[in-house]
Each structure stands twice: as structure tokens, then as C-alpha cells.
């Protein structure tokens, strides 16, 4: 059984229970179950950030199961692929569906301080030579949305004279020379043959040296699991021929994913047909996320 199957199963449980209890008509007994089911079925933003639990996300038991008995993928050979991602910042509209999808897909902690991917908003006001930058984690955006789990930018510039504005999606760059792998004292985080940098959460000691070493701020620390966290390009999906969740949900095609070994893959075409850049090239990490339309202000 794959992680997805397990998740689907977990989703189904409260729904079927609702029907069952509804039939029985035991109002008092089913109240809790209905609340749970409604939570699962309603908008994702209704999740409770405080508990870090969400009906779509893995619970601790499912997580333990997935870690201790990872799904086997017999037909996948990591020597055959070289995954890469492209981000076209000129297409991004800052809808943050990628953030939401990522949090759901990967059971990322729901608060604003733990993200595997996020989107930055850059705004040049008229006459200014520098950009104002914020992300969804900005307290003003959260206050405006009313919750950390409603992924929205506020409308703070509606009365300002904006000269130029754009969004830049960020995620782990799955670097060729990853600083995080270099500093990991146990080897719990490692570079896979097909590109993504992965974490063995059963071996990580939680020293957070990798969190310090990442130049892109892509790593965070999961306090409840006591281990490091980061984007792995939805490794469980890409090894089955699917796109990462953020790519899948992007409504504008701002995110492009594929295999560089395949010259006709979306990412190979993206790199070939555009002048691409990477973030912080001076760090020497050689990122594998390629950007189009970066600006001097992008951090």
C-alpha cells in the first residue's frame, strides 16, 4: 500500500462513519465525527494550525508506518533519471495553491514557520530603487487572511503607486553541491542519484546544522518529530511518474518539472528555450531549480 493509498483511506474513514452514524441517527454520538468529517470535506483553510493536524495529512501512526515500511517501487531505477525544476516568475500570480498543496501532500507543519515551498512578493513602488518583499508568513498577510492555513497575500498595495511587481516561488534547490549534505554529521541527509536531496528521518539526530547551512532557507525543523524537513520534489510522486504536488496544482504553469535525461521533457525544453538563472550562484551550490525572470532584488 502506498502512502497515497493510505492517505485516501484515512480520508474515507470519517466520511463513511458519517453516513453510518447518520443512518443510526445518534445525534450526540455523531457530533464529533461530523465535525471531523466536515473539517475534512470543507475548505483546506479550515484546518487548525495549532494542532498541526489536518484530515488530509498523515497522522503520526501513518507517518510511522510510511517511514518504517516505505513503499517499494520495483520498476523505478534512479540511475535513469535526472530530475530538475523550472520556475517562470513571469507566470506566477501568487495564488499560493502550490504552498497549500505541498502542506497537504507532505504533511508539513501547518504553521507559518515551517514551509517546504513558499512564494515571495516583490513590489517596486514608484520612484523606489529597491523592492518591498513579503511572503505569506508575513504577520500582516496572516492577520488579513485570519489564519496561517489560509494561504493568501493581502492587498496592501491597492492604494499605492506600484511601478513593478512580481512573485517568485521558492523551494529546495536540490543542489548539485548541497551544503546541507556537506554538514550533516551522520549522513542522514544525502543526495540521491536522480537529483533530489533526501532525508532519512529515522537516522537524523536533529542537530539542525543543515538548517543553518542551507543558503536558501529551504530547510526547517519538525519539533514533533525531532528531525529536519525539506522539499524532496514529492519523491514519492515523481518516482511513480507523477509531477510534484506544487507543479500539479499550479494554474498558470509557472512551475515546470521533468527529467533532464529526456531532451523533450518540459524542464529540458524550459532550460533550452529560455535564459535561465539560479538563485545565489555565488554560493557554489549549483542549484537544480532554474528560474526565468529573476530580478536583482531577489534574495
Amino acid at each position, binding site marked *: 500500500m502506498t502512502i497515497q493509498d493510505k492517505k485516501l483511506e484515512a480520508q474515507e474513514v470519517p466520511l463513511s462513519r458519517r453516513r453510518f452514524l447518520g443512518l443510526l441517527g445518534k445525534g450526540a454520538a455523531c457530533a464529533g465525527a461530523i465535525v471531523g468529517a466536515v473539517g475534512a470535506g470543507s475548505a483546506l483553510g479550515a484546518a487548525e494550525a495549532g494542532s498541526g493536524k489536518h484530515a488530509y495529512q498523515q497522522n503520526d501512526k501513518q507517518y510511522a508506518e510510511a517511514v518504517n515500511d516505505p513503499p517499494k517501487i520495483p520498476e523505478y531505477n534512479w540511475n535513469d533519471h535526472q530530475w530538475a525544476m523550472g520556475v517562470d516568475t513571469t507566470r506566477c500570480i501568487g495564488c499560493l495553491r502550490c504552498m497549500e498543496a505541498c502542506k497537504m501532500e507532505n504533511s508539513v507543519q501547518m504553521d507559518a514557520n515551517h514551509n517546504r515551498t513558499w512564494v515571495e512578493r516583490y513590489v517596486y513602488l514608484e520612484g523606489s530603487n529597491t523592492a518591498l518583499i513579503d*511572503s505569506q508568513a508575513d504577520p500582516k498577510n496572516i492577520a488579513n487572511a485570519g489564519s496561517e492555513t489560509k494561504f493568501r497575500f493581502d492587498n496592501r498595495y491597492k492604494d499605492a503607486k506600484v511601478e513593478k511587481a512580481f512573485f517568485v516561488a521558492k523551494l529546495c534547490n536540490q543542489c548539485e553541491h548541497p551544503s546541507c549534505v556537506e554538514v550533516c554529521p*551522520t549522513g542522514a541527509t544525502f543526495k540521491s542519484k536522480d537529483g533530489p536531496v533526501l532525508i532519512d528521518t529515522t537516522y537524523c539526530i536533529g542537530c539542525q546544522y543543515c538548517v543553518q547551512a542551507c543558503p536558501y532557507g529551504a530547510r526547517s525543523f519538525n519539533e514533533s518529530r525531532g528531525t529536519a524537513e525539506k522539499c524532496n520534489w514529492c519523491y514519492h510522486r515523481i518516482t511513480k511518474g507523477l509531477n510534484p504536488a506544487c507543479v500539479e496544482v499550479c494554474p498558470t504553469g509557472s512551475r515546470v518539472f521533468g527529467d533532464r535525461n529526456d531532451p523533450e521533457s518540459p524542464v529540458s525544453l524550459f532550460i533550452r528555450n529560455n535564459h535561465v538563472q539560479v538563485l545565489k550562484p555565488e554560493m557554489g551550490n549549483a542549484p537544480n531549480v532554474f528560474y526565468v525572470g529573476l530580478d536583482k532584488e531577489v534574495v
Partner: protein
Amino acid sequence: MEHVFEHVTPFVGYVYPNETDFPWSQLIVIYPYITGLVAGAFVISSLDHVFNIKSFAPISRFALLTALCFMIFAPTPLLFHLGQPTRAFNAVITPHWTSAMAAFGYVAGFYLCLLVLEVWFAFRADIVAMSKVRTGIMGKVYGWLSLGSDDLSEHALAIDHKVARILSMIGIPAACGLHGYVGFVFGSLKTREWWSSDLMPVIFLLSAVGSGVGLVIVLYVIVSKFRKTPIIDETMRGLLYVMFTGVAIVMVIEGLEILEMFYKAREGIETVRELIAGPIWVGMYIQWGMSVFALLTTSALLVLNVHGKRLVTWLFLSGLAMMIGVLAMRWNVVIGGQELSKTMKGLLTFTPELFGRESLFTVLIISICPYVALWLVTKLLPPWGEKIEPEGRAFDVHKLA
């Protein structure tokens, strides 16, 4: 809504969203502080053991025990900090050698073994003497501690002395290595502008010696007051020389590092300036204020050729100032480095927790432990070279043979 404001680290400008969760807290501040005290105390003990500078003889064994007791507790802040402390030995069993941190277990383990061995050789004669004069369970304990080696002939004592000296000689580069290595853990990170400096290992090492000497001075004065024994002037003068040298060099190097950073003025230097004027200004004032105080005091003590009680008072104060100043320096480095965002366009302001696993309370407990351990160890192994006099009988260790 309150949730985010509860545990998010407040910031100005733009910081990466994940940065608002502070990775290394106050526990990582006291870890280099404690190892620094070890290195400094060890240097003092070796001045007599290796270089035979007799003015340090009265405190060399005490300094050695101080180094041992602090070394025992050096890894504890790390254990409290780890997300998975039970897996701590993964780094030792399967070290990932490209990591600066992977060698920690080996470096610390080697140094601890070295200290234990040196203590045993330095105290063997006393242990044997006490196993002969003490009765009851303590007599047995000393018997075990002597490991059955109860030969106190001149030849055997000479061998003890020689071995202790060799161990001490190995200990000097090891102490420098241990602490320079801690500096390397920070200095080698290219990500953080505030840490990424080639001078970092040197700064850590020199400030370690400064704070360690400060610790030995403070402890020596306090212990002598409690024991009602005279404070030897020559020893205090010796400590003064080391203190002055340490404080002068470390201030120059620290100054150079900041000067270099501002002179290079790489991207984001305005944010560095704001960091110093903003989140860590108190720490910077304490660090530099205490250092200047220690430098001026020790200079005056040297110039005016002060001896006796005034020397004790002022050297005690400058030792204390150095300990506080170096603690502030550790804070400024470890916390300051993280308060400066990786975006170089934002600053965070860290507020430590008072209670909890990673809190000031934990820091307090861990900081007290080495002193308690030292008190117990000096009960077990009196380092002051006094005659061992149980039940009215007097034994001179060196006449037992």
C-alpha cells in the same frame, strides 16, 4: 491567530519564512563557552606541567581538575538541543566526514580521555597515600582509583611526572584543536555572513583562553577565601601576564574581524550595521565594555606594578569581567549570526524561553553543574598539595616510600 505570534521570532525587513523558527538557541551559546573555559583552564595547568613555570605550580592541579569538570559537561548542552538525543551516537558510529560536526565525538572523547589520564598521573601519589590512610569505604575507593599501582618510589614518581608532562604537551594542541574546531563549526558556514570568517577559529580560541584564565582567577580567589589560605602573589602575577596577553590579542583580532567585514562592505553590510545597532547592541556593549575593562585593569596592574591585596581585588574583577565579556561574545556570535537573516534584508530578534527543554533554566542548571562537580572532585582529589592528615596522623606523600 495568536498562534503565529506566540512562537514566531519577530522580525523586520524580509526573512525567509523558515527562519522565524530559530535553529540554535541559548544552549548553543553556552556550549562553546564551556569548552572555552576548558581550554583556558588547561592552558594554565600546562604552564607549570610543560613549561615548568613555577609561579603556576600552586594552581596547576586545580586548573587541571577545573578543565576536567567542565569538559565532562561540555557535550550536555548539545544533547539537550538535539531533536533526537538518543541518536546522538549516530554521528560517532557512522560519522559523515565532510561535516565539521562529525568529528565532535572523537575530538571531545579524545580530549576527555586525555584529561582523565593526566589527572590520574598527576594525582596518583595522593591517591595511593589516601588509600593507605583512609579507612572504610573511602579507603577502598582510593584503592580502586589507584588501579593497584601503589609504587611510590622516587623512580615511579618521576615516571608519573614525565607521563603527566607528555600528556599535558599533547593536551595543548588538543585543547587548541578542540576549541579552534568549535570556531570552525561556525566559521566554515558560508551561509551566514556574521559567522563566515577565517578568523573565527582564532577568535574562539583566544577568547577561550581569556575566559578560562578568568575562571581560574575567580575560582582561585574564592576557594582561597573559603579555605582561609593565603593567595600567592607570584601566582597572581603569572595569571595577570596570561590574562593581559589573552585579552589584548583577542581584542585586536575581534576588532580586525569587524573592521574587515565593514571594509569589504559586501552586499547587505547595512543590515550587519543594523544588527549591531539593533538586536545585539546590549551584547556588544557588554562584550566590548568588559573586554576594555579587563584590558585597562590588567594594563594598569602591570604598569603600576601592583602586588598584594589590590592585585587580588582588581585581577579578580577583571577575571570576572572577562568571563562575562566572553559569554556575551558567544551570545553575539551564535544568536547574532542567526538574527541576521540569510536574505541580508531582514533582522530577527530572538527572545529566549525561561522554562522548558531549551530554556534559560536549562542553561542555568547546566552552567552550575561543572562547579558542583569541581567541588566534589576537589573533595575526592585535593589539588592543593597539602599533607594528608586523617585521624590525627600526618603523612607526607613524598615520604611514604
